[in-house]
């Protein structure tokens, strides 16, 4: 921890150097709330402790790796993992596509540009729970979405989205896409605005067509910004919980459970804390290692 610091000769110099003391409060808070629980997790994951057994968690019978074994064959857990990956992929792809399209519309100056940007980024300024709340109302049987479909298709359409095992995922994903496309839009727009103007002008001067300029010059230059946007959105979408809890709570029968929802139900509805701790440990390990690999663009750009 010895950076090129030279605060050593502060008058009231005790053991800990000045710059370390500056960092301690932040470091200790995080240690207490993140690192200590992870250690508890390591213990808990190897037991099948359930609070309903009314014995303290440290007396729980040691269960070795059986939790992991059961997880491997736990149909519901595996489905929730793949379902979450599916949601992440669909949402990121949709958000990026919409954001790129929208950003290109905002490249040049025009009269109502500022107002339009403010409206477009409104969804981002809402509490996620309320966004889900709004979509809950939009997608109920007698809600405006069904009404629109009825008007469009001509016959009455009273489909109950939120209780259908597969179609229930649509409102969840739409809520996520609706809320976070504006962020992706801002990121891509910032990337486009900071493009080196002269490289584009040079390409035009050399007689290149708009398409060639976009794909051969602009897009490669956008790669760093887009990769940061994808990394950040992937991390956030993987943790998706609020829309799922509000819209379907994972029902019907776990058909719409993402990992977070599965673990919430497992731990706080069925109270199988030990078993879910094992799942948590697995997820923690996988996510953190992937993110360290993915964060290279952030590191290069940070």
């Amino acid at each position, binding site marked *: 921890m010895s950076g090129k610091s030279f605060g050593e000769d502060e008058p009231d110099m005790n053991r800990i150097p000045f710059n370390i003391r500056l960092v301690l409060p932040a470091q200790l808070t995080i240690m207490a709330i993140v690192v200590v629980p992870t250690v508890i997790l390591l213990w808990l994951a190897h037991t099948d402790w359930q609070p309903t057994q009314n014995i303290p968690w440290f007396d729980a019978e040691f269960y070795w790796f059986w939790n992991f074994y059961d997880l491997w064959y736990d149909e519901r857990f595996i489905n929730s993992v793949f379902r979450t990956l599916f949601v992440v992929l669909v949402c990121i792809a949709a958000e990026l596509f919409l954001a790129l399209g929208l950003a290109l519309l905002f490249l040049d100056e025009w009269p109502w540009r500022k107002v339009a940007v403010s409206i477009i980024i409104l969804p981002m300024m809402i509490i996620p729970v309320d966004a889900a709340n709004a979509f809950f109302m939009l997608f109920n049987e007698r809600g405006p979405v069904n009404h629109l479909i009825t008007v469009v298709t001509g016959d009455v359409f009273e489909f109950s989205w939120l209780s259908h095992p597969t179609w229930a995922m649509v409102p969840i994903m739409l809520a996520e896409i609706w809320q976070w496309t504006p962020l992706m839009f801002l990121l891509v727009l910032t990337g486009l605005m900071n493009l*080196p103007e*002269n*490289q584009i*002008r*040079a*390409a*035009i*001067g*050399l*007689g*290149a*067509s708009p398409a*060639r300029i976009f794909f*051969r*010059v602009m897009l*490669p*230059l956008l*790669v760093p910004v887009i990769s940061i946007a994808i990394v950040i959105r992937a991390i956030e979408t993987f943790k998706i919980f609020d829309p799922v809890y509000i819209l379907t709570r994972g029902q019907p029968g776990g058909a719409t459970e993402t990992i977070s929802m599965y673990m919430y139900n497992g731990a706080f509805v069925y109270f199988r804390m030990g078993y879910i701790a094992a799942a948590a440990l697995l997820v923690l390990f996988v996510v953190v290692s992937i993110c360290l690999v993915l964060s290279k663009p952030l590191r290069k750009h940070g």
Partner: protein
Amino acid sequence: MKGADSGDVKLELRNLRKVFDGVEAVKESNLVLKRGEFLSLLGPSGCGKSTTLAMIAGFLEPTSGEILIDGNPVTHVPVQKRRIGLVFQDYAIFTKMSVRKNLLFGLEAQKIPRVERDKAVDEFAEKLNLKGLMKAHGGDLNMSEMQRVALARVLVTKPELLLLDEPMSNLDAALRASLRGELKRIQKDLGQTVLYVTHDQIEAMSMSDRIAVMNLGENLQVASPDEIYHRPKNRFVAEFIGDPPINMISCRVAGSGGSLRVSTEAHKDMPFEITAVSPGDYLLGVRAHHIMAAHGAFQGSIAAVVKLVENFGSEHVLHVTYGQDLMTVMVRPGFARAGDSVHVSFDLKDAHLVDRSSGAIYRPDEREAAA
């Protein structure tokens, strides 16, 4: 070095004008550029030279006026179709491509067949000694490499006209000196018509066949470097060209008709041949190397105190007191030190009589003022 051969006109501007919300950035420009000629647009930042360049290249819509290349108007032709080569101040190398890809970009855009493309690229890589750099990545070139790649990338498409926007301003002085020669040699070999924008008068003086000195959007004078230096049309041109800048000594003209008398604070009643000048307050423009200096007094000299000595190595420039203001005098090294007193004088035939208000310059051999 005489101007380009008579040949036909490559670029013509017909009272080209640009107004930015009320401010005339470029006033009625009527430049003419012959085939193979090297013309510089020289002026301080904000004088409208880059605006003129942007209009010629097509990135900026002129408020009025016409731009003709080889006689046909291109004012409303889109940038891609004007076949104009453009090198930017920051070179604008495609940082995500290799040097070879940079050079091929223009030819690929114009759908030139592959064989021809590779031949042209290799030819110009040779000319600008980029052979060893072809595989290098566009992002990690140094300044002079970037400049050469930017030049090659444009020249390979054999443009009708080459526009250079201050390509040397972020290079070190030593590098600039060698690159000036190289750029001029390439321009000569290819017979390439060049419009060169710069604020550095040494670059303009050393490379141009003709220079257009601009200020506040106006072409003040368009002539050969020699003409611009020795017979400047007005005060701005005289003060902008020449290092150290020309001395402007306030003076008063008296008498009338044939025998005019000019007197400054220190020199009284010097005879002056110009006839068409009315008496009154004027300025005398005298270059540092036209001023005579000696340790002892001599005919027509006055005493002056040396405030600062600028050491250029091969000569020194003394900043001496002359009446209220300072005057620069070019002398041999070691002639004097700060604090010494020297005697200075100058010959009126080397001086330019400058009108205080209009800035116009009168010269002995011209009848009326060269406005």
